[in-house]
C-alpha cells in the first residue's frame, strides 16, 4: 500500500459530531488574547484600562465601528485575491504593492483626471476603475514573468510590492508627480486632498458612522469570487492547473491563460482595496499609505484555508484588532510594538490551530 499517504481523509470529518473547525479557532484567539493581556500586565499597564481602550476602539462608538468595518473590507479584498490565486497553486504575496499602485492610480485620476464634474457617480467610479486596472497590471506582471520564464510568483510579487511602495513614496515626494504644490518648506510630502465628488459615498451619509460603499461592494465580490471558485468552469480550470498542471495541459487547459487570470484577478482585487483606502478613508495619498494592509490581508487569506467565509471571518478579526490596537496605544499607552506582538500571537496560534484541524480531519 505505497499509495496510502495520498488518501487524505476527505469527508472524514463529517463523522464527528463535534466539529473542531469552529471551536478551535475561537479557542486559539482566546488563548492569544489571554497571553496578550498577561504581557500588558507585565509591562505595568492596567489591564482593565487596556481592555476598555480596545473595546472603545473597535465597537465603542459608531465611528470606531465603521473604521473597523472599512479596514476589514480592505483585508477581505486582498484575502479573496489570495484565495483565488491560491486555487491555481499560486501564492500572491503582492497585496501591499497592488494596494500602493491602486492608491497612486486612484489619486492621479481623482485629482487630475477631470472626473469631479461627471454625473452618475462616474467621478468616484473612474478613479476606482483606474486603481483596479493598476492593481491588475501589477499582478499581471508577475503572471507574465511566471508564464514566460517560470519566475517564482512568491518572489516576483514580493519584489513588485517593494517597487510599488517606493513608487508611491516617489510620487508624493515630487511635485512633478502627485505631491501637492510647495507653499512653504513645511509643506508635507503628500498629495492634495481629493475632491469631494470623487470620495466614495457613505452608506449613511453621516461622518459619525463613515462606512462607505466599500462594504456592500466587498460583500458582492465575496459572492462573485465564491461563485467563480465553486460554480464556474474558471474555478475548475484554476483547480486543475493548481492540482496537476501537467494533466491539465494534456487535457487542453491553458496553463498560461489560467495563471494570467488568477494573478490579474488577485491584482485587481488588491488595486480595488487601495481605491477603498484612498477614496473611502484617507483622501490624501501619503508616504506609508499601504502600511501593511496588503500583508494583513494576505494573512487573512492564508488563515482562511481557501474558504471565502473564512476570509471574511479572519478579515473581521484583523480589522477589529487593528483599530482596537491603535486605540489601545493612544488611550492606554500600550506600546505599538506590543500590539503587533499580540497580532502575531493570534496569527501563530491560529495557524497552529489550522494545522491541528487539518490533522484532525486527516485522522
Amino acid at each position, binding site marked *: *500500500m*505505497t499509495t*496510502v499517504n*495520498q*488518501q*487524505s*481523509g*476527505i469527508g*472524514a470529518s463529517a463523522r464527528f459530531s463535534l466539529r473542531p473547525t469552529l471551536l478551535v479557532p475561537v479557542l486559539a484567539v482566546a488563548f492569544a488574547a489571554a497571553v496578550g493581556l498577561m504581557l500588558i500586565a507585565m509591562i505595568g499597564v492596567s489591564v482593565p484600562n487596556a481592555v476598555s481602550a480596545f473595546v472603545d476602539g473597535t465597537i465603542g462608538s459608531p465611528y470606531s465601528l465603521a473604521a473597523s468595518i472599512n479596514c476589514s473590507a480592505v483585508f477581505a479584498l486582498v484575502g479573496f485575491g489570495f484565495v483565488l490565486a491560491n486555487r491555481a497553486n499560486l501564492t500572491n504575496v503582492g497585496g501591499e504593492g497592488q494596494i500602493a499602485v491602486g492608491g497612486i492610480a486612484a489619486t492621479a485620476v481623482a485629482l487630475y483626471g477631470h472626473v469631479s464634474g461627471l454625473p452618475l457617480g462616474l467621478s468616484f467610479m473612474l478613479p476606482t476603475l483606474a486603481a483596479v486596472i493598476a492593481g491588475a497590471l501589477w499582478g499581471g506582471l508577475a503572471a507574465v514573468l511566471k508564464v514566460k520564464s517560470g519566475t517564482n510568483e512568491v518572489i516576483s510579487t514580493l519584489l513588485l510590492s517593494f517597487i510599488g511602495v517606493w513608487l508611491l513614496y516617489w510620487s508624493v515626494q515630487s511635485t512633478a508627480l502627485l505631491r501637492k504644490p510647495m507653499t512653504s518648506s513645511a509643506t508635507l510630502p503628500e498629495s492634495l486632498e481629493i475632491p469631494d465628488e470623487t470620495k466614495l459615498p457613505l452608506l449613511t451619509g453621516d461622518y459619525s458612522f463613515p462606512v462607505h460603499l466599500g462594504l456592500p461592494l466587498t460583500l458582492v465580490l465575496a459572492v462573485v469570487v465564491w*461563485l467563480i471558485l465553486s*460554480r*464556474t*468552469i*474558471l*474555478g*475548475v*480550470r484554476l*483547480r*486543475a492547473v493548481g*492540482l*496537476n498542471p*501537467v*494533466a*491539465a*495541459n*494534456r*487535457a*487542453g*487547459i*491553458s496553463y498560461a491563460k489560467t495563471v494570467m487570470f488568477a494573478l490579474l484577478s488577485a491584482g485587481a482585487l488588491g488595486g480595488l482595496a487601495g481605491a477603498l483606502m484612498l477614496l473611502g478613508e484617507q483622501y490624501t495619498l501619503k508616504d506609508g499609505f499601504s502600511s501593511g494592509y496588503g500583508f494583513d490581508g494576505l494573512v487573512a487569506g492564508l488563515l482562511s484555508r481557501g474558504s471565502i467565509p473564512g476570509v471574511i471571518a479572519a478579515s473581521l478579526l484583523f480589522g477589529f484588532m487593528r483599530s482596537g490596537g491603535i486605540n489601545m496605544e493612544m488611550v492606554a499607552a500600550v506600546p505599538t510594538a506590543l500590539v503587533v506582538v499580540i497580532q502575531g500571537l493570534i496569527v501563530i496560534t491560529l495557524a497552529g490551530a489550522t494545522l491541528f484541524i487539518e490533522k484532525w480531519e486527516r*485522522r
Partner: protein
Amino acid sequence: MSGAATVPAEAAEPLLALSQVTKRFGSFTALSDVSLDLRPGEVHCILGENGAGKSTLCNLIFGVHQPDGGAMRYRGAPFSPSGPAAALAQGIAMVHQHFSLVGDMSVVDNVLLGRQRGILDRRQCARELEKLAADYGLPLDPFAKVEDLSVGERQRVEIVKCLIRDPQLFVLDEPTAVLLPDEITALLDVCRRVASSGRAVVLVTHKLAEIKKVADRVTVLRAGRVVATSSEPAKDIDALVRAMIQGNVDALDTSAASILGLDTVKHVAHEPAAKSRVEALQIDGLTVKDHQGVTRLDNFTLTVDRGEIVGVAGVEGNGQSELTAVLSGMMAPTEGRIYLGSSDLTGRSPKEITAAGVGIVPEDRHATGCVLAMSLAENIYLNRLDEFTRFGFLRRTALEREASALMQRFDVRARGPASSFLSLSGGNQQKAVLAREITLPNLSCLVAAQPTRGLDVGAVAAVYNHIRAACTRGIAVLLVSSELDELLTVADRIVVLYRGRIMGSCAADPARREAIGAMMAGHAQ
C-alpha cells in the same frame, strides 16, 4: 482449497513468524489476521493482485509500518521494529519496488550509503562486492556510475546493497516488473542461491511463471487476508490462481490469462476493421534530444493503419516516454514530423491534438492522466469540460449525468460521479482515463502507453476489450508496453525500441518471443 497443503509439523523453527497481524489505514483494512511463517532456506512467494496487501506485508516486516494488531516473532523473540533501521540491524533487508539509488554516485558509494560513518573505505567495499559477485553471480563494476547502468544492473546494485549486510531474511517486493526475460531468470537464480545458503527469501509477485520456477512455499493474499497457502506450488498452481482472483480460471479472458502466466501466450486477433490498409498515423523520422543533448528517440519512423494495433516493445527508458510525450503534444520533437491522415500534427499543442482526434492514455496516469483531487466526473470529461457550461457556469448535473453513462459503459466502479478520483482503485482510474480518451467524438487514433500497469486481471481484460473494440471501429492503435506478453497477445505487429531506435519489427507471433527478447536487449535481428 483442494490443492492447498498444510504446513508439515516437523518444519524447521521459523525465522520470522507473524500471527494474526492486522494493519489499518484510516477506515481501510490493508491486512487482516494474517498469519505466516518464514523458514531459513526457503523461497517464500507472496502472491496476490494489486491492492491485496503484499507491499503492506513487506513494509510491516521491514518496520516501515507498525501493525495495529497481532504479533511478530523473529528468531524466537518478540519482534516489533520501530523503523527500517531497526529491521536492518536485526538482519532483515528489503529490495523495494522502486529503486532507491543515487544516480550520479558510483556503485560502491551507493552501497556504502548509510553503512559507514567517517572515513569511507571504498577499496575494502569493492573487494566485498567482488566476492559477493562471485558467490551469487551478480557481476558489477564497483566504480561505475549508477546512472550509466541498465535497469537490470541497477537492480543488482540494490540486491548487493542488501546482501552485503549479510541478512538472515531477504525481502524482494515485485522485483521482476522492470526486467528483461533473461534478467528475470538470473534474478530468480540469485533468490535460489541466497536461500540455499540458509537464509529466508520473501519474493512478492503476481506472476505465476516465477512461482513455478522458484517458490518453495506460496502464500496467497486477497483483500488483505491469507486465502491459500501451498508447499507444492507447482502442483497447486490452478488452485492458487483461483484463490488469488476469486473466480473461475476457465472464464478468464484468454489474453489476461496469458499475461498472468497461467496459459502459454496466445495471440488473440481482434475482429478486422471494415476498412483496412488506410494509413492513419504516420510518424516520420522523429528524433528527440533532451536538454543535455542526449538523443532519446532516434529517427523513429512508423505507420499505423486504421484498424490496426501496433505494439511498441522495449525495456522501459528506451525512448517510449519521449515517444508518447511527443505524440501527445507535451514535448516538441527535435526533428521529424507526425501526420494524422493528411494533417500535420508536429509541434501542435495537446489541445489541438485532442481536437484532431488523437486519444492518449498516458503511461503515468497520476502525473499526466488525471487530477487526483478532483471528482470522477470532472476527470472523465477533463478535456471536454467546455461542453458542459452555460454562461461560464459549469452544468454539474448534466456533467454528472453524462459521466454516469460513461461509467456504466466502461464499468468504472465508484460510489458516484461526484466521488473523488482519489477514492477509486487503480483499475477504475485507468478505465476512466481510457473512457475519456476512447470516446473523443472524432477519435481516429489511440496512443496507449502501459495501459494495464498496476491493474488486476479483471481490469486488464476490460482494457484489452475496449482497445480491441476501438480497433474494430477502424481506429489506429499504437500500444506502448514493456510487457512483451501483453503485446504478443493484443497487437498485430510489434516494433522494438532500444536506446531510442527501432531495433526491428515483426508480426506479433508468440513463437518469435525469443527473437523479440533479443532485440529488446539490443541485439539486431
